[in-house]
């Protein structure tokens, strides 16, 4: 896949070392594809001058090692790269199966979500685990995946007061989003389960197993299975290579 999808995008200076490229302000998987493709092209052509690439829902941010001396020249340069028909080694994308225990022991907000939304707990679990989610990008915390694709029946307001300590591995829904807390942190989403999987481990070569563009599916497991997997705290999630 080397063709551009041809979406309108704009460039903005963001300080003197950073360039922000933006697409229409919508959450859309096709735009994500374009952002990831453009990122790979820039990486191939300008590996040395850019130290970091940050993907957002509709943006790609390039952080340069040094000050960008001529912003307009650099933008024309990037636009040339965008138009180039580069042969890229597109990295394989994976579907990751994430075991989640939705037992009330962990899903501490399940009952409240169920009574307020009038959807049974069983149905909440079904709706949450039957969808395949797309990883748009990673932010907020190291290893926190921004997932798209939550069933609109599960759109549910964030808690009025965020919890100060959400446990590591908590699976939660908030607004139109769902996600997994990779470490203990404050958080205002409604907790519906917990995964024994470690989403961020600095000791691993790849501290976070997933990449933007990958897919995620949650697989319900029992309490026994949760504790069994949690004992073996180094297990890798089941993954399936997705065809491009």
């Amino acid at each position, binding site marked *: 896949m080397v063709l551009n999808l041809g979406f309108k995008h704009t460039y903005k200076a*963001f300080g003197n070392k950073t360039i922000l490229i933006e697409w229409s*302000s919508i959450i859309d998987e096709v735009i994500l594809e374009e952002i990831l493709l453009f990122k790979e092209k820039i990486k191939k052509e300008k590996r040395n001058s850019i130290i970091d690439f*940050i*993907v957002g829902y509709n943006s790609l*941010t390039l952080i340069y090692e040094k000050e960008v001396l001529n912003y307009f020249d650099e933008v024309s340069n990037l636009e040339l790269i965008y138009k180039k028909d580069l042969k890229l080694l597109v990295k394989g994308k994976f579907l990751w199966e994430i075991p989640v225990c939705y037992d009330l022991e962990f899903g501490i907000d399940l009952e409240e979500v169920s009574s307020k939304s009038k959807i049974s707990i069983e149905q909440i679990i079904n709706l949450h685990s039957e969808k395949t989610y797309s990883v748009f990008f990673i932010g907020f915390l190291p290893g926190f995946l921004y997932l798209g694709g939550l069933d609109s029946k599960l759109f549910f307001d964030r808690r009025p007061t965020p919890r100060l300590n959400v446990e590591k591995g908590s699976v939660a829904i908030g607004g139109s989003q769902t996600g997994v807390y990779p470490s203990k942190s404050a958080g205002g989403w409604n907790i519906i389960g917990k995964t024994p999987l470690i989403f961020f481990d600095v000791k691993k070569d790849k501290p976070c197993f997933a990449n933007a563009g990958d897919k995620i599916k949650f697989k319900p497991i029992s309490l026994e299975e949760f504790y069994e997997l949690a004992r073996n705290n180094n297990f890798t999630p089941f993954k399936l290579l997705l065809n491009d």
Partner: protein
Amino acid sequence: MIKVLKSGFYTSVQDRGRKGFGSIGVPISGVMDSYSANIANSVLKNSLENAVLEITFGGCEFEFTNETIICISGANFSAKINNEPITLNSRIKVNINDVLSFGKIVFGVRCYLAVKGGFLTNSVLKSRSFYQNITEDFLIKKDDLLPIESYISDLRPLNAAVIIDELHFVSNKIGCYKGPEFDLLDEFQKKEIETHIFTISNDNNRMGCRLNEIVENKIPSILTSAVIPGTVQLTPSGKLIILMRDCQVTGGYPRVLQLTDSAINQMAQKTTNNLVKFILYD
């Protein structure tokens, strides 16, 4: 080694931060005031990449188990070796069992202790900068042993100190560029941001710094996108937040300003109730 006798208010090991891990959500971190940290390393002829100790408000005490040369730059917390005052921004020879302590705060918020060869604590994701959930510790603790090299030399202490621009610590003028969402502001909001003098609230740390005054705001949140140290966000409540070195890699509030590099360093030397005025460059 350097033995920690007292850990102080907030003391951490920092270098120039983690580069290249933004795509997995890892903040850059690194020294808050790179201007001062660079001076400390330069005086010792260290590499600018060497890790230093970032000391907030002093209060800490260290004992050296090695001979080495040190340099302290940045804020003035009346540093002493064995109770004898020492000069900032100069080379100081220390001997085994010497004790470095800090006293009265004269100016600034953060000082940097550099040692010849740098602090050799563990490097995680290509940096020694402390950060919660990345490194084992995020603050130094009493009785910690911080590894450093021995440096035995006849190098005499410098007689003259480096001259530091005092404005770095006292000026309330903070240089900045327009942020990506600056143009979403209406004329009234732009004028408020450009002319107001803002006060730093007590909610200020390595992650960011909230300002007290309110700029009435009806701009909606944006789709989550990148933020970087020095980004100024306008929150729905109308309060501005200046993001600092430990900030997250993404955020959803409009990014109205972006501080210059030197302005980020100046902000690192400010604290609760200090005033700031944004000076907007084109």
